[in-house]
C-alpha cells in the first residue's frame, strides 16, 4: 500500500546552509533515503524549493488566474515529499517518524488512492 509522506516545517527552523549543523543535517537525509531504498519501500521522493519560488494557478470561467506564492500562506510550508510502499499504516508511521525534520516539523501521512483496473 502506498502512502505519501508530506513534509511541512518552518524554514526558519532548518539549519542554515552556512552553519556547522548543516552538513550533518543534510547527511541525515541521505542516510534516510538510502534506508528507504534498502528496505524496498521507496517509490519516489523530492525536495522542493521554497515558497518564494511557488506560483499558484486557478482556472475560473475559462480564465487562467496565475498568482505568486503558495496556496496557503503559513509559517509551516511543504518542503518535500516521499511516496513509500509498505504493508500498513504502522509501517508508514515508523518511516514518517524517522524523517530528519520530523523533530521540528510535521509529517502528514496520506494513503494514496488505488483504482481498481
Amino acid at each position, binding site marked *: 500500500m502506498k502512502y505519501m509522506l508530506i513534509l511541512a516545517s518552518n524554514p526558519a527552523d532548518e539549519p542554515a546552509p552556512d552553519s556547522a549543523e548543516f552538513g550533518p543535517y543534510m547527511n541525515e537525509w541521505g542516510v534516510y533515503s538510502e534506508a528507504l531504498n534498502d528496505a524496498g519501500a521507496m517509490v519516489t521522493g523530492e525536495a522542493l524549493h521554497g515558497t518564494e519560488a511557488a506560483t499558484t494557478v486557478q482556472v475560473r470561467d475559462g480564465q487562467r488566474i496565475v498568482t505568486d506564492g503558495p496556496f496557503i500562506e503559513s509559517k509551516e510550508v511543504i518542503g518535500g515529499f516521499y511516496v513509500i510502499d509498505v504493508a500498513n*499504516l*504502522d509501517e508508514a508511521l515508523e518511516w514518517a517518524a524517522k524523517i530528519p525534520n520530523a523533530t521540528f516539523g510535521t509529517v502528514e501521512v496520506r494513503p494514496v488512492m488505488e483504482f481498481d483496473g
Partner: protein
Amino acid sequence: MNDEQQVADVFRTEWPRLVATLLRDVGDLGIAEDATQDAFVEAATRWPTDGSPDVPAAWLLTTARRKAIDRLRRIARYDERLPLLTLDRGEEDQDRLRGHADGGEPFDDQLALLLGCCHPALAPDAQVALTLRAVAGLSTAQIARAFLVSESTMTRRITRSKNKIRTARIPFDPPDIATLHQRIPAVCGVIYSIFTEGHSSATETSLVRGDLCDEAIWLGELLARLTPDDAEVAGLLALMLLIDARRSARLHDGAPVLLADQDRSKWNQATVARGLAELARAHSFRHGGMFQFQAAIAALHVTAESFEATDWASIVRLYDVMLRRQPNALIALNRAIAVREVDGPEAALRALDAIPLSDDLDGDLDGYVYFHSARAEALADLGRNDESRTAYRRALALSASTPEQAHLRRRLEALT
C-alpha cells in the same frame, strides 16, 4: 440457567473473541461486527426454542462465519476473500475452543482488536466508541446514549473511523512485544476515559452513569487477562475497582456526597477486595506508573474507618512521588486537598496558590471547578468568608453539573 440468560452470559465472553477471529479472517471490522451480531440474534431466537448447543462457542463461531460469508457475498469487492473463509477450520478451531475451556486460549486476536480500536491514528472519541462497539459489544444506540449524543452523530463517528481504518489501512495485527509495550498506555487511557465518563459526568443530571463504569471495568479485566505481565494494566484495574466500590455512596437523592460525608457501610466490600487484590498484583511487579500510584491512594481511602482516620500523610507522600515523576497541576490540586487534612487549611491554601495556573500540561486550572471549590473551602475554614464566597461563585459559574451546582450553592449559602 434458562437459555435466554445463557445467551446474555455467553455474549460477554464470546463477543470480542468472535469479532477478533472474524476480523482476522475477513480483514474488515464492520463485517466482523455485523456477522457477530447476526450470530447472537440467531442464538437469541433459536436457543430458547431448540435448546442451547453443547458447545455454545463453537456454534457461535460457525454461525458467525456463515453470516460473514452471507454478507461478503452481497459485496462483490470482497469476492477474493471468500475462499479464505471456510466454515470449519478443523484443528485450528479445535485449538481455540480447547484453549477456551482450559482458560489458556491464544489471546492474540483479541489483543489485536483492542489495540486496533485504540490506534492513535483514530480520534480519541472514535477510539472510545470503537472499543465499546467492537470489543464490549455495545450497540451504537447504547454508546450514543452513554455519551449524550444523538444516534446519528455516533453512527457517523463510528462510520468515519471505520472508513479511516480501511482507507489508511490501520493494522489489526497481533502485536509484537515492543509494539505492545508502546501501545498499552493508549489502551489504558481509552479504558480509563470510559470509566471517568461514567463516574463523573460533568454534563448529566445523574453524576454516576454506572453502566459505563461496568463496561470500563470489564474492559480492564479483559486487558488484564490479555496482558497478565503489565504492572500498569493491573494498576488501572485496581484503581477503577477501588473507586467504583464507593459508587452507591456517592449520591444521595441525586446529589453528590463528599467523601467525608459518605456512608462507608454502603461501600461494596466485595469490590474493595477485588481492587486490593489487583493492587497487590500490581505492586508485585516492583514497578509501575501513575495508575498504580492513584490506586494506592484510592486503597488508603477505601480501607480507612473514617474520613478523619484516613492515612492522609501517606496520601500526601504518594502525591509527592507522582509530582516528581510527572509535574501536573491536577495532581498538585489533589495533593493540596490532602494537605488540608494533614497540616490544616492555611497550608492547603498556600499549596493551592503555589500551583502554576497556566501549567502547560493541563491548560487552564483556573477554569477548573474543583480548584475554586477547594480554595473556597480552605478560605471558609480560615474565616475569610468574603474571599470564600468569591471562590464558590467562581466554581458555580464553571460547573456544568446540576447536582454539583446544588451542592456548591448549599455551601455558599451556609457562609454567614
